[in-house]
């Protein structure tokens, strides 16, 4: 028969291990990056989105109901604030073809609209996302005026985790240094933009610039 102290120690140990396991699991979940498709090195000229000829164009693909994308939106806001108009931002929100009514105009929409200079676009059934190989909400691509891919990946450190991160730092670096020798990339954290196993109906058109 274990003593009270032993039982207390055992209880404490179990409790600590449970907490530690839970926190580790939660951390692992946060660091569990989303999938990334094949992002074209040249601007694919998606319908409805024009490449800015004077400065780089930034596209963020977002799922309007993904809670994790709230952090990506914040980081985008911060990024744009730091880049001082050096990029033309677009936020492309996923929207199913059969919209039952609450996909457009949610909190993330409003957040995006509230960011100055951001152009909000709609991506029905993720067609545009597929063009850019975006499979995870919060996926960002940056093309220079010459249609060249400068960066692709996420701008958060983890799922829904705001704060300094490698993707944001890379974008700021290429915008400020104009170093386009290498394509920047980072992991992206967020909900899946597309339904699993959904085929891509969209044809890719080559950049003309």
């Amino acid at each position, binding site marked *: 028969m274990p003593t009270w102290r032993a039982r*207390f120690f055992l*209880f*404490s140990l179990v*409790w*600590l291990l*449970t*907490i530690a396991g*839970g*926190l580790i*699991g*939660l*951390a692992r*979940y*946060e*660091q569990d990056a989303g999938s990334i498709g094949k992002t074209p090195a040249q601007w694919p000229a998606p319908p409805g989105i024009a490449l800015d000829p004077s400065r780089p164009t930034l596209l963020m693909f977002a*799922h309007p*109901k*993904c*809670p*994790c994308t*709230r*952090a990506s939106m914040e980081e985008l806001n911060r990024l744009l604030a730091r880049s001082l108009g050096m990029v033309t931002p677009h936020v492309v929100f*996923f929207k*199913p073809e059969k919209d039952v009514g609450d996909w457009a105009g949610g909190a993330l929409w409003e957040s995006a609209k509230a960011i100055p200079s951001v152009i909000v676009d709609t991506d029905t059934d*993720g067609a545009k996302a597929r063009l850019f190989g975006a499979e995870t*909400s919060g996926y960002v691509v940056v093309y220079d005026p010459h249609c060249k891919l400068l960066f692709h990946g996420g701008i958060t*450190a*983890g799922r*829904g*985790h*705001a*704060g*300094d*991160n*490698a993707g944001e*730092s890379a974008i700021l670096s290429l915008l400020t240094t104009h170093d386009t020798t290498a394509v920047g990339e980072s992991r992206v954290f967020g*909900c*899946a*933009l*597309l*339904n*699993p196993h*959904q085929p891509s109906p969209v044809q890719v058109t080559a950049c003309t610039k």
Partner: protein
Amino acid sequence: MHQVIATVRGTENYITTRRDELFQEQQQNIIEHTDWLFARLMTLQWLAGVIATFLLSPRSWSGTESTVHPHVWAALLLGSAITGGPVLLAVTQPGKILTRHAIAVGQMCMSALLIHLTGGRIETHFHIFGSLAILAFYRDWKVLISATGVVYLDHLLRGMFWPQSVYGVLTAPMWRSLEHGGWVVFEVAFLLISIRKSLSEMSNVAERQAKLEALNENIERAVAERTTELTRENTERRQAEARLQHSQAQLAQAQQIAHVGSWEWDIAADLVTWSDETARLYGQSAADVGSPMEKCFRRLHPDDVARSRSVMEQAMRELKPFECEHRVLLPDGTERILHGRGEIIADENGKPVRMIGTAQDITAARKTAEALRRSDEQLRQAQKMEAVGRLAGGVAHDFNNLLTVVTGYSEFLLLRLEEKSPLRREAEEIQRAAERAAALTRQLLAFSRKQVLQPRVLDLNEVVSGMEKMLVRLIGEDIELRSVFEGDLGQVRADHGQIEQVILNLVVNARDAMPRGGKLTIQTANVFLDQKTVFRNRGLEIGDYVMLAISDTGVGMTDEVKAHLFEPFFSTKGVGKGTGLGLATCYGIVCQSEGDIRVYSEPGSGTTFKIYLPRLMERTIETAAPKPSNEMPRGTESILMVEDDAAVRKLASAVLSRCGYRIHEAGNAVEALALIERHPPFDLVITDVVMPQMSGKELHTEIMKRMPTVQVLFISGYTDDALAHHGVLDEGLSFLEKPFSPARLAQKVRTVLDTRPAAPAL
């Protein structure tokens, strides 16, 4: 205060120990209270995390498909796991060390969870700092160390395995964990300082409380000791008061019993206070306490005020004790005689400041002394009367024998002398002189109450009426005689002749008191005395009396005269004008008749003598006494004459022989008894009462043994109570008073012989 405390405990050890106890107790209370605080806080923040998760991250999406967001499960499950353990310990094991360390670990883990759930928002990190501040409530630096350790470990591990989650970069050096931990340590350092200061204050407070408790204990003990002391003092005081009250009551009772009161005079303030008995003696009321001395003097008899004041003033001058007898006039008019004693209390300068004293009621003692004086006077008077009586008796016995002989032979002589005989006048003078001598002898016997009364039922109205003519002649023309008779006057039993003697004496005195004329009133009345009255120490019982009052409008009498009025040989009439036996005779007769005589007189206001005789409640009619005559009835019976005085014996024998009786003579009782033995039975024995060897009464007893039917006639000048009780002849005895005349002897003998019972027929 410290000194007081030190005196209580004697050392600082108690305060130190108590300070530590209080400090630990207070700390434990704080810890338990903080445990409860965190139990609530952790529950609330867990619920808040769950709610926030449901609001912010309810679901995780894949295109149009969604599942429950892992944050929801984390908030529910991991949050409950983090919260449940510490809350359970806080509820079941409050105050334990492990409980607060578990709370510290749990709270830090909860901070990590919330940071996770809120997407690593920098604002949520303040939860860590807030939690550390709240953990500082424990005032236990070890708890902060535990919490800090958890925080640092979390950052260290994250920096090692997921640096981007904490540093925003993909790789970070180890020292960066120290940077984040440093900020936590920065806060903890201040918290530790705060804790140290707080603990110091707590220690100071505990020390102050320990001192206060020690002081309170000292005060409580002092109060308890003082209370006990006061209780004991109160008990002793109550007992003393009870004893004092008992003593005062005893003193008051003793004063009441002894009729001695006490008083005190504050001379400077002129305030007199006194005891209850003094108030009663002086007739003072309670409201008079504190009166000035002058007001107290008002209670004194006016005749005694000046003397009493003089005595007190002299005592104050000489500072000596004093005594003073004085009378007090009570409000109801009663006069009381008090004997006061006092002493003076002077200050250091010899000035009288207080006077204390007592007052003793000596009224009863004075009355007793007066009564004793009167009793002594009465005894002296009685002894004088007894001496006079003895003298009178002795004189009367021989004198009456002589007068009997003188009277008898003078009567014989008158019987033999012719009416025209020149010797008859001398013989009559001899007879009158003998009668006056006899009357004088009777008076001597009367006031000495040695005479033999022969009481009869009398109506005093008739007695006075029968004397009126004689009295009118006696008082003369200048005095008016008035008779006021009560119509239905009761009867009395008295000697007729003696009552006449009384009236005669009083009327003569009244006449002498009115030399210039006046009014003499004789009044009779029935009176009822409803209470026993005493006059001249002679009392009259309650009952019906017949009063005979004789009043004059003469010169009256002083108290001195009244005091000696009834004494024999006391007279105010001057030498040769009175014998001094008149009122003494009256007094003797009335007293011998079971009555009383009282006098009311004031100088210049006349005098009233009131005679009270017991009233007979049943009226009876008695035949009047036969009037004296010179008739000498005859007889032939045999008579034995016993008389030690030969002259009387021969005279009596001669008288009776002349009347035809057969006489045998004996000189004393022995001879008489011898004759009775030798001779045939006698019809009558005449015997003197006072004889040597054997008295007439004893002879009578012996004769009755031998001749029960023989008649006995006693002759005597006085009885000396041999035959009479208080002068009244015993029932069934025949008596002839000396001096007697031959006719009176013959009549009495015949009467006695005729009353013999008839001889039985042979």
